């Protein structure tokens, strides 16, 4: 189960003079669940689109596992892209014929009580997303790529969405790569966190071990230089430092209480840290 299903090498995407993705090198394993977080405009969506073959990189390569054809990749864009003039049923038939799906699974469609003769453009945003997901589910995809759409769905549909994804992970060992800002919405489905900034990954850790690697410390004094931090929050009476990567010897060098952070806070620190860096 440790084989790579996706290998990205030297990936570069430019639009005009602006470099969106800058020499990215990363691997993804089978059945891995990953979340990609980062600031707006950091390149996350572009990266996902590259993986989905919707954008062609200017340089570099994306190598899929042998046997992972385009039919086995499912992609939901943050722009909700479907052929909206078709009805629900027509869309299902179209998708089935193109992806060679023999027996389309209507469970989710029926669960949500979609009207098969309703035109897709008349569905709400959340419904469109769930509809698209149900199309992808029937592909039994090996890789599922989901752009930032969780926040557009109401809590009820969100729950259905997550349950469907969990089903995929368990049943088909799907590799799921999601883009999301916060963890509260996607709960604890991802096992690996990536933070992207300016077309580069500045954080790539397993969720489990993240707690040990990032800690925060509060002090009135300045932190010694050798201790690396990603964010410093200053107020009139104290300074808070978010330290990464944390090493045990820091406890001696700067003896204070080191607090462990939740994943949400970690993401916030990383993203916030970049904003601060920009300001400097």
């Amino acid at each position, binding site marked *: 189960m440790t084989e790579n299903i996706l290998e990205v090498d030297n990936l570069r995407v430019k*639009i*005009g003079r602006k470099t969106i993705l800058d020499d990215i090198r990363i691997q993804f394993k089978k059945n891995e669940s990953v979340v990609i977080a980062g600031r707006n405009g950091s390149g996350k969506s572009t990266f996902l*689109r590259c993986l*989905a*073959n*919707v*954008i*062609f990189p200017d340089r570099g390569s994306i190598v899929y596992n042998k046997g992972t*054809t*385009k*039919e086995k*990749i499912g*992609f939901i*864009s943050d*722009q*909700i*892209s*479907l*052929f*909206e*003039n078709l009805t629900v049923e027509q869309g299902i038939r*179209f998708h089935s*014929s*193109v*992806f060679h799906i023999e027996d389309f699974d209507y469970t989710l469609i029926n669960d949500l009580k979609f009207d098969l003769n309703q035109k897709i*453009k008349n569905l709400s945003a959340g419904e469109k997303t769930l509809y698209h997901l149900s199309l992808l589910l029937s592909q039994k995809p090996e890789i599922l790529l989901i752009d930032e759409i969780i926040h557009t769905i109401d809590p009820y549909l969100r729950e259905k969405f997550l349950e469907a994804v969990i089903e995929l992970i368990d049943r088909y060992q799907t590799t799921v790569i999601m883009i999301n800002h916060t963890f509260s919405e996607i709960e604890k489905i991802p096992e690996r966190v990536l933070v992207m900034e300016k077309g580069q990954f500045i954080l790539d850790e397993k969720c489990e071990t993240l707690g040990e690697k990032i800690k925060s410390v509060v002090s009135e004094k300045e932190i010694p230089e050798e201790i690396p931090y990603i964010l410093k929050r200053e107020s009139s009476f104290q300074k808070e430092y978010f330290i990464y990567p944390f090493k045990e010897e820091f406890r001696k060098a700067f003896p204070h209480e080191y607090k462990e952070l939740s994943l949400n806070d970690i993401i916030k620190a990383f993203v916030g840290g970049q904003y601060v860096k920009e300001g400097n």
Partner: protein
Amino acid sequence: MLKKEISEVLKHSIIFILVVLLLPAILLVTTIISDQSYFSVFFPVFQFGLFFWALFMGTSLFSGERRQRGIEYLLSLPYSRLQLIGIKTLPRLCAVIVFYLVFVNLYKIGGQDSAATTFIPFTAIYFTLFLLALSLSAFSDNFIILSVTSLFSLFTYYGLLYLVYWVASKIRSIPLGELDIEELFLLEPGLSLWLDIPKFLPLVAIALLLPFLISFVLSIKKFDVRPAKVLNKRFFKYFTPIFVCCLAISLLFAYQGTKIEYQDYYLTQDKKLIESNYYSKIKIYDGDKVYKTEKKFEYFWPHLVEDEYVYDLWEEQVVRLNTSNYKAEILYEPPEKRELTWIRWKYNNTIVFLEKNEDLSGAELVLFDLSSKKTTRIPISYNQLIDYPLPRIFGTEKSGNKRFWLIRSVHDSKYPILRVWEDGRTDVIGKTQRRPSFVNQMLITYLDDAIVISKDFEGGFKTIREIPWKLDLAFSTGWGFYLNNIPIKEIYGHGQRHKIIARLDLETFEVEEVGEFAGYLRYFHPGIYYFVETIKPGVSRNIYQLKEGQMKILKSFPDFDIRKGHSLRVFKAGIVFIRGKEIKVYAFPDLKELKFKKL
């Protein structure tokens, strides 16, 4: 996926059909042109609509998805980019072709003017518009921008096509009109379908279209959701070098295509070989050397040789080449609104030819004096010649103090003869069954069953002999360019149908058959006859000399083959054998091969 595209195209087709059917009716009703029939309005509407159809089909490749915001979904489907555009292009191309065929056939059935010829410019524009619009379809989301760009490209494309043709003509110094392409560009009707279009033009048309199509295919391979300018940059990156290459290739095609292959050779009495070509300098090969005239000539068809002078018999100028100093000069050019009929004749120091008004309102016999360079003109009422097309002067003589010329023509399978005096009088001599000749001051004409020899007396031609003769052939002295009237002893004739060579003795007036041979006679003044025998049609020739009823074989050319572009020319001085690209010259009397080093 293909089904979806087909249904989309069908939907568009139905709308198009409805518009094309209804619009003429609406036009008729609103503009109250009630005297025009529905069909006479329908066809122009259809034709105009087709341009719009071609444009729409070309640009609409991605418009459906764009409108439905489904581009990302489209690109995430398991098709390669090339497969996608293939699936999208196929139904549209079929629709374009189908509607074109429908239009063409309706037009024919509808009984409009036999307009297959006017379709050439229309067809070219229609299909190139589609292909250009197709190759630009990923440029932009906006239909108006796409259409404007496509139309602009169309004009540029046709401009370039014309430019290539213009450049090629300029390089070769050929006037544009000569290639008859201008008519194509002016959308003039009446072009015969395939004959008038030079072969290089379709090749150039395709070559100039290739940069668009190839750049499109290459750049579409990386089509994605990034802004269009990324794709456009890539398109131009491919387009520029391919376009430059294709332009160069087009110029090459055009240059090659405007090459006028035909070359004419003439062997002079002093064994110089003259080579002439369209719009080029005349070359003279003399032993080891080759000389070129200074000027270029439209065409030089040397067929009149006297001493060092060679005169041409073709086209719009009278040109004379001096083979000793290699200078060519234009002796005469007709004034405006007049044209020369081809073929000139020379006697003594005068060249005579017929000149007519371009509007056929009149004609003149022009006498050009070579020493004084002066022209004398004798008007002929062309009406007389209207009954007499293809006039040919075949004899001249002085009767009393006045000179006359004999002109023959063809009419109703008979040959009418006209006599024109130098004071402008004309006599109608009569009609003869076969081609007449004038030798030894005698006019030879034919009745159904006899040869009639007549002579000119005051008051007209009178028969002096009638020889019974049934064969369908006439005795001739070839083209008869020389009218110098040196008496000859015998005259020969050869029949196409019966393939008999016959001889008429001009002293005894005896007629005999020499033999049965396939081929043709060649005559050189005065009285030298050769016969070129065709052993097998198109292949293999023998050359004989005819003298006093005897045929003596001079040379055999067993490897002669017309299909390989061979040609045999027999001249007074020798034989020129054009063997494809090789020229072999054999000089009389021993037919030794003459070598021209520079040939």
